[in-house]
């Protein structure tokens, strides 16, 4: 028994070492993928600037890569499209989201709370094409009819739809932010005679402000990065919009629309990677800021 025991023990040690190495390698892959994405986007993206001056890309006001003779690669209309639709989304989703989160975290209990959170989470997982389809067949005719405009596929429609889509993110993250506020804060307020309402708005909400701001940031990220739904309802004209009822074209939908029709290796093809770069930077920045905000909130409660 002692004779067989030793080699077996050695093989067990070996398996143990190997398992540890495999796990470590797997987890490194995520970092590699993130760097890989950045590398590919940069590598391909910068090739745009062999043909298009970088300033004309960043500050150009016309996006028309197919124009005969002189194609134009101006980022401004696309950035405006993304930012304006996202702004409308946040105007809708931030107040509604925070109000809902306060209710869910401070008032709802038991199965009502679980059911509400589940529905919200379920909605967060809805395929964006289905939402885009809903925007196309319901929201668009509704907008066209209500405001007497020829087409309901416009900035307003995109903004409203994005508002719905970022709502679950804002609700969930705000709810988490409110829930990590220690119970002693509330009890102290109650002890001074504050009502639950006063406590929620004067004590808990201010204490959770970094976390709430993180929720808004993540909602912003979700709206800027959304592709399919926005592409289906925004009208997709790459112009600088002058009213809520003008069609817009976002950065994301430009990539989705044009990647299929641009010739591999052309300036047009590479310019879409440059757009990807812009999205990547926005998304990464948003995430890092949100992350540090959440950390800051948690830290503020530890003595």
């Amino acid at each position, binding site marked *: 028994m002692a004779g067989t025991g030793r080699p077996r023990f050695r093989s067990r040690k070996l398996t143990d070492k190997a398992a540890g190495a495999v*796990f470590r390698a797997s987890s490194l892959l995520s970092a590699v993928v993130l760097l890989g994405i950045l590398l590919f986007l940069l590598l391909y993206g910068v090739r745009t600037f062999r043909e298009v001056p970088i300033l004309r890309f960043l500050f150009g006001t016309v996006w028309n890569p197919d124009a005969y003779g002189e194609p134009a690669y101006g980022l401004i209309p696309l950035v405006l499209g993304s930012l304006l639709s996202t702004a409308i989304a946040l105007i809708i989703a931030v107040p509604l989201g925070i109000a809902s989160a306060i209710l869910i975290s401070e008032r709802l209990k038991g199965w009502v709370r679980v059911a509400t959170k589940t529905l919200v989470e379920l909605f967060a997982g809805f395929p964006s094409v289905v939402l885009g389809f809903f925007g196309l067949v319901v929201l668009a005719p509704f907008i066209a009819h209500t405001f007497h405009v020829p087409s309901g596929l416009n900035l307003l429609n995109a903004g409203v739809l994005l508002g719905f889509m970022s709502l679950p993110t804002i609700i969930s993250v705000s709810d988490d932010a409110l829930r990590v506020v220690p119970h002693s804060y509330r009890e102290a307020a109650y002890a001074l005679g504050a009502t639950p309402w006063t406590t929620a708005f004067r004590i808990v909400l201010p204490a959770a402000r970094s976390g709430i701001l993180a929720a808004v940031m993540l909602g912003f990220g979700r709206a800027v990065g959304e592709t399919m739904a926005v592409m289906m309802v925004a009208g997709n004209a790459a112009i600088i919009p002058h009213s809520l009822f003008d069609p817009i074209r976002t950065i994301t939908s430009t990539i989705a629309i044009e990647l299929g029709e641009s010739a591999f290796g052309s300036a047009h093809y590479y310019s879409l990677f440059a757009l990807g770069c812009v999205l990547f930077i926005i998304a990464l920045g948003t995430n890092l800021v949100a992350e540090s905000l959440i950390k800051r909130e948690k830290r503020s409660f530890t003595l």
Partner: protein
Amino acid sequence: MTGHEPAQGRRLRRTRFASNYGFWALGIPLAAFLVFIVYMFAYLLRNGLGVISWRFLTQPPLNGMTEGGIWPCIVGTVLVTFVSLVFSVPIGVFSAIYLSEYAPANFATRGIRSSIRSLAGIPSIVYGLFGVALFVSAMKLGLSILSSGLTLGLMNLPWIIATAEEAISAIPGSFREGALALGTTKWEAIRHNVLPYAFPGILTGILLAVARTMGETAPILFTGVTYYTRQLPNSLSSKFMALPYHLFALATQHDQMMKVRPIAFGTAIVLLAFVLLFDVVAFVFRLRTASANKWQV
């Protein structure tokens, strides 16, 4: 002092009123949102349920997609989701094991965690671009189920890591210590005393990832999905049809858009049904495991 009392009383009453009814006012937007979700669901069902039949589910599209069913899309979506999981589940679970059991609290670990969270926030269309550059072009996998599956796998990897890590670190340290005290190696302790108990939580995460992966369109758009193909995919290098892209194509690309609208509604319902099926199973699973976690004292 007495002169102030009525004013104070009024203020107190107002505060009480706000506290009693204010929360109900907050419930209005939330209720409106929930009603919107239910309305949308009902609207899709009312318009699409009539199209759903056994033949719709099992036939290929016919006559320029104006008739017939969506069988190739169902097959494509199921296959491409499966390929993505073959890639992301092992790597995701391994990463989660490393992060919760092995990772030292240092700069490198913080970097890895931060990368994972960042990956989760990257727009899906950027994954699509990366898939085109890496899998389709650089690795020469072409437009295929494999390219699309790997792209989706990269996308759902951070979701799987996050839920799996949560499930694994919820197992109390005493479980590991019990095994280690009997002379097991670290891996044996994890294998026999941690993973079996973390399994339900890990599975919940995988089911949620399946639901969300099935509905994704942007990552597969340029890596292998196709508008129409007569053949079911017969290898990993085939192009394929998929439910979300089919819905998008019918709704916005088809030249007889109004004529195919009923089929679009039907496709939307089938896609939603798949997504909700996995979501609901995951939720039920989570509820049951939450109440079954008896070791939590």
